[in-house]
């Protein structure tokens, strides 16, 4: 049987199950009321529902920040509305929010593996080193080798990102840090061949 909108008698096009503190609630909305509540519906050229929803969640997770991109003046709000980033710098400015979205959309992957432009070889090498050190740091902490862990942390801090940030990269991928570390190395090796 066709579901009707919770707010009117039109057929519902958006169906969502929300679990809050273990309590499950279902939401069914028609296109008009879905739009009112900020859902982005799929269209021929517009953003997909999935992208829009993931972006919404990413934005909610980031505490509805209103940071502005220094490159294009865009915000997470404008990215959410368009389903598209505004410029390459958006990915730096909104790294956390977009990273969460990308991670979900890409089935858990969070670090690039493969070809890269010659101009980015240094960046890729540094990212690979950071991933490897972060993995070693986690292992050292796991084995309670705190002296070694402190040294690794210092090396990480000497790189362009903080240790926390590097660990964040690892954690984002789930399924253990090995995959990330290996991925970064592969990228660096391919870069060497491609340069």
């Amino acid at each position, binding site marked *: 049987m066709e579901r009707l909108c919770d707010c009117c008698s039109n057929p519902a096009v958006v169906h969502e199950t929300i679990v809050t503190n273990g309590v499950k609630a279902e939401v069914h909305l028609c296109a008009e009321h879905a739009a009112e509540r900020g859902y982005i519906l799929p269209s021929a050229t517009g953003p997909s529902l999935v992208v829009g929803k993931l972006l919404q969640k990413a934005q909610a997770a980031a505490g509805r920040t209103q940071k502005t991109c220094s490159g294009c003046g865009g915000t997470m709000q404008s990215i959410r509305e368009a389903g598209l980033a505004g410029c390459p710098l958006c990915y730096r400015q909104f790294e956390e929010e977009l990273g969460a979205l990308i991670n979900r*959309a890409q*089935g858990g992957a969070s670090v690039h*593996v493969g070809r890269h432009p010659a101009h980015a070889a240094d*960046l890729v090498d540094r990212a690979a080193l950071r991933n490897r050190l972060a993995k070693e740091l986690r292992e050292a902490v796991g084995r309670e080798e705190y002296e070694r862990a402190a040294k690794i942390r210092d090396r990480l801090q000497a790189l362009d990102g903080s240790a926390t940030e590097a660990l964040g990269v690892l954690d984002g991928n789930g399924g253990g840090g090995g995959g990330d570390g290996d991925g970064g190395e592969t990228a660096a090796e391919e870069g060497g061949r491609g340069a």
Partner: protein
Amino acid sequence: MNPTGDSSGPSQPSMGRGTPVNHGAAHVSRLIGLDGAERPPESDCVLSSRIRLARNLLGFNFVNRATPQMLADVVHRVQAARLGGPFSDGVRWVNVQTTTPADRLQLFERNFISRPFVEASHPRAVAISSDESASVMVNEEDHLRLQMLAPGLQLRPLAERMFAFDAELERGLEFAFHPRFGYLTACPTNVGTGIRVSAMLHLPALSLMQELDKVQRAAKDLHLAVRGFHGEGTDALGDFFQVSNQVTLGRSEQDIVDEFTRSIVPQFIDYERAARDELCARDAATIDDRVFRALGILRSCRLLSLDEAIKFLARVRLGVTLGRITDVSLSLIDRMLVEVQPAHLARATGCPLGNGRDDRAARADFVRRTLH
């Protein structure tokens, strides 16, 4: 019209399929089919292979947030760069913003440009290689969409050519890249390799056996996008299905191409071939009736809609690949699948574009003449 498909056809320019392609080490091969005609690999079940890379220029806003002046600058920047690769032997640039609607539609029907690219109004252009195997859309959703096409299943040679082309292009253009996210694209779900590997499958036997739901589920399990004859949002007209990768991050381009070639596409091919064998063994007369009836309609009709044309050509295609129909070549059918479309038809016959009845009469006339 020569039914063996050797003629270049009434429309211009000729399809890239008619020209063997060989650039450096990456050789796009051809095989000989049962009817003696040249056949690309696995062409009984795979109409064509395509690889696309999304790239954006450093220092420019993405297309959705760029001013017309910025977009015009992007076009100039790309036009000034040496394209190289498959474009070394000649390149045709089309200013898509100023060209006629009929030209735009013809480029779309030839798969050089996408539907949104046809309908947009901002500054944009497309470069087409002289052998028509490669194109570069400038200012689609991303600044550059590099695309290579080949008949049949030829993803590996296409990939080799594409990577060489990309590396050559990068000497003249600086692409936006992030160490964690890879190549940056306007849509956050395309970042990483920015690669889209796809195969246009022809699955008429699975359709006849009503197994397509299983195919769709299998594709979903393999994290593939499934689209129709004309890409996103189109129906599976003629039982043609385009499958493409959705994951672009965390796996190398080569991995994705290898998986498609070694595992994904062969699964669909094996499934379809088994269905064809079963249908032929179970009731060959029904298959024969279906394919020869389609050929009969195409050779006799007086009014033919586009959907009918695709449907019956697809059935004849099945008959040719099964070796039941032997007086029509596969290359001719595959070429006709393009040439019966509105803009090609209008150019070939002079009939007005999209004029219902005249259009159908012109299509029927064209198909009859081509198949006799």
